[in-house]
C-alpha cells in the first residue's frame, strides 16, 4: 500500500520549489550528484550528452605529478553486476590538466574537483601544491587507494598513521582548497581510517573506492587482467558501500560523499538517508552516459512527490533499530 503523496495532495508545489543544494563543510553544491573520479574523464567528454552545469560537480581522473600511461591491457573485465578495472592511474599529469583541461571547464557552472594521488607522500604534496589556487578549481580529492612505494606497495589508506600524515601534509600544501579524502574499502574497519583522515585535517570524506578483486581466464589459466587484480565497482558493491557510509556517518563527524554502485535516484537517496551529504556516481556513467543528470532530475521528482522541500533534510535520516549496536550482531 502506498503512503499518500504529500506533494500531490497538499497545496501544489512548483517544480522549482525543491531545494537540491547541499553544503559539505566548506563546499556548497547546487545539487548532491557528483560524477566520480576515473569515470568522467576531464568533464568535456560528456558534453554531447549533458550540461555540466546540471551536475552538482565532477571529479577529474586521478592526477599525478607526471603523465602516466597506465597498465598494459586487458585493463577491464565485466563481472556479475559490476566490473573490474586496473587502469593503472593513467592520466595527463597535473601540468597538462592545468594548461589544457581546466581552462575549458571554467565556462561551465559546476564544481570541479581534482582527484590527486602519488606514489609517495611527497608526490601527493607536490600535486596538491601545484593545484592550490588554480582558477576554476573548487576542491581536491585525495585518492588514498594508491600503493605507497615507500611501504612496499601497501595502499596509503590502510594505515591510520600514514593517512593522518599524508592528509596533514596535503592540508598544509593546499590551504586554499576544500580537502576531500577518499577512503579505500579494503580495510577491516573503515571508521578507523576515516578518523585518521579527520585528525589529519580533512574537510570532507568520500567513500568508497573500488574493492580488490580478480577474474580468471579459465581457458588460458591466466588472470584476465594483465595486472592480476583490479578494483571492483558498480551495482554489485552497493550494499557494502552503503554499510560503510552508514558506519562512518555514525562514527566520525565529517560530511560524507558516498558512492559505490549508484545507478538510480533511489540508490542515491538511500546513500543520503544512510548519511551521505552528497553522492558520487561512477560506473553508471559508462553504461548510461546521461545517468548523472537523470539522477539529479529524478531526485527532484522524488522530493516533490514525497513533499521534501530541501533534499538536505534526508541526510542521515535513517532510523536505526532501538539500541542498535555500533557493530552489527551476528549475521
Amino acid at each position, binding site marked *: 500500500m502506498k503512503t499518500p503523496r504529500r506533494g500531490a495532495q497538499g497545496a501544489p508545489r512548483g517544480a522549482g520549489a525543491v531545494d537540491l543544494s547541499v553544503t559539505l563543510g566548506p563546499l556548497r553544491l547546487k545539487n548532491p550528484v557528483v560524477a566520480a573520479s576515473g569515470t568522467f574523464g576531464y568533464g568535456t567528454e560528456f558534453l554531447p550528452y549533458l550540461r555540466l552545469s546540471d551536475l552538482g560537480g565532477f571529479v577529474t581522473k586521478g592526477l599525478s605529478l607526471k603523465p602516466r600511461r597506465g597498465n598494459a591491457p586487458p585493463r577491464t573485465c565485466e563481472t556479475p553486476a559490476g566490473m573490474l578495472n586496473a587502469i593503472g592511474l*593513467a592520466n595527463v599529469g597535473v601540468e597538462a590538466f592545468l594548461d589544457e583541461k581546466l581552462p575549458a571547464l571554467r565556462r561551465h557552472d559546476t564544481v570541479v574537483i581534482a582527484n590527486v594521488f602519488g606514489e609517495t607522500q611527497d608526490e601527493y604534496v607536490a600535486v596538491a601544491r601545484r593545484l592550490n589556487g588554480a582558477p576554476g578549481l573548487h576542491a581536491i580529492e585525495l585518492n588514498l587507494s594508491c600503493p605507497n612505494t615507500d611501504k612496499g606497495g601497501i595502499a596509503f589508506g590502510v594505515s591510520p598513521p600514514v593517512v593522518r600524515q599524508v592528509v596533514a601534509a596535503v592540508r598544509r600544501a593546499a590551504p586554499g582548497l576544500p580537502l576531500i579524502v577518499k577512503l579505500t574499502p579494503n580495510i577491516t574497519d573503515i571508521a578507523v581510517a576515516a578518523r585518521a583522515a579527520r585528525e589529519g585535517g580533512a574537510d570532507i570524506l568520500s567513500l568508497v573506492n573500488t574493492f580488490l578483486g580478480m577474474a580468471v581466464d579459465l581457458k588460458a589459466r591466466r588472470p584476465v587482467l594483465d595486472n592480476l587484480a583490479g578494483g571492483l565497482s558498480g551495482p554489485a558493491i552497493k550494499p557494502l558501500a552503503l554499510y560503510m557510509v552508514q558506519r562512518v556517518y555514525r562514527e566520525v563527524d565529517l560530511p560524507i560523499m558516498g558512492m559505490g554502485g549508484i545507478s538510480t535516484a533511489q540508490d542515491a537517496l538511500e546513500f543520503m538517508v544512510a548519511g551521505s551529504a552528497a553522492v558520487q556516481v561512477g560506473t553508471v556513467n559508462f553504461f548510461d552516459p546521461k545517468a548523472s543528470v537523470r539522477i539529479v532530475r529524478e531526485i527532484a521528482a522524488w522530493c516533490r512527490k514525497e513533499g521534501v522541500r530541501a533534499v538536505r533534510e534526508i541526510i542521515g535520516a535513517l532510523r536505526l533499530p532501538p539500541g542498535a549496536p555500533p557493530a552489527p550482531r551476528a549475521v
Partner: protein
Amino acid sequence: MPFDFPAPVVRHQAINRDHFLLTLESPRVARAARPGQFVMLRTRPGHDPLLRRPMSIYRVPPSGRGQVQILYKVVGSGTRYLSGQAAGARLDMLGPLGNGFRPPRPGRRPVLVAGGIGIAIFPFLVDRLLRRGSRPILLYGARCRGDLVALSYFQARRVPVRLVTEDGSAGARGLVTRLLEPILGGEGGEERCELFVCGPSPMLRAVGALAVEAGVPCQLALESQMPCGIGVCLGCVVPCPADADGPLYRRVCTEGPIFEAGTVEP
C-alpha cells in the same frame, strides 16, 4: 557527434543458428554514421549484463527511413539476450562512435579482408565505395561454411569474393592470409591496392605485418573490451610501438577502432 537514445527494433532476422541481423530505428544515428563506426548497445534492461556491447554499423539502408543495421554473432550472454529482443523492443543505443575508415588513397583498389564476424563492418563501407566508383574486392575467411554470412550482399553488388575456411567446408582451406599473399605479391602490383581489415587479433597482426612489409597502406579495425565507448574509462587501450617513455597505449573506442597498420600492436 554521438547520440544516446532508446532505438526501437524494427526487424530482427535469424540468419542461421548464431548469426542475426538487427534493424533499429534511429534517424539521428543513421544520418551521422560513417563506415567503420560503431554503436554501444544495451542488450536487455537491468544489470545483467551490466555494460553495453560494441557493435559495428553493418549498414544504414539507403531507404532513407533512418534505420541502422547490426550484424552479430552470439558468443556469450549479452549477444544471447540480444537475440531474444523482438520487434518493438527499445534498446538503448549510443552512437555513432569511433573514427571510421578513411577513404582509400587515390588510385588504389580497396581490398577488404574479413575474418569471421569481422565481415559485419564491410557492407556499409562497400555502399560508400561503390557510390564513389571504387571497385572493392573481398577476401573472407571463417572457421567453417556456417560462419560465412552476408555473402548475398556482396554477390548482389558484384563485389568479387574469395573465400577460405579453416576446415575447408567452403572455399580454399586455411587462413585468410593465404588469399592475401598472391595479391600483395604481385597479382596486379602492390601499388594498386589498399587493405581494409576486420577480424580477430591474430589475423590483424598477421595481415598488418604482411601489408607493412609489402608497403601497402592498410587500415585495421580493432576489437577490444569496451566498457564506455566514449574515451573516458581508458579500458579499451591497445599497445603501440614503445617510444622513449616506454609503452604507449591508444583508446580503441575514440582514437580507433580504425588504425593504420604498424601504428598499433593488436
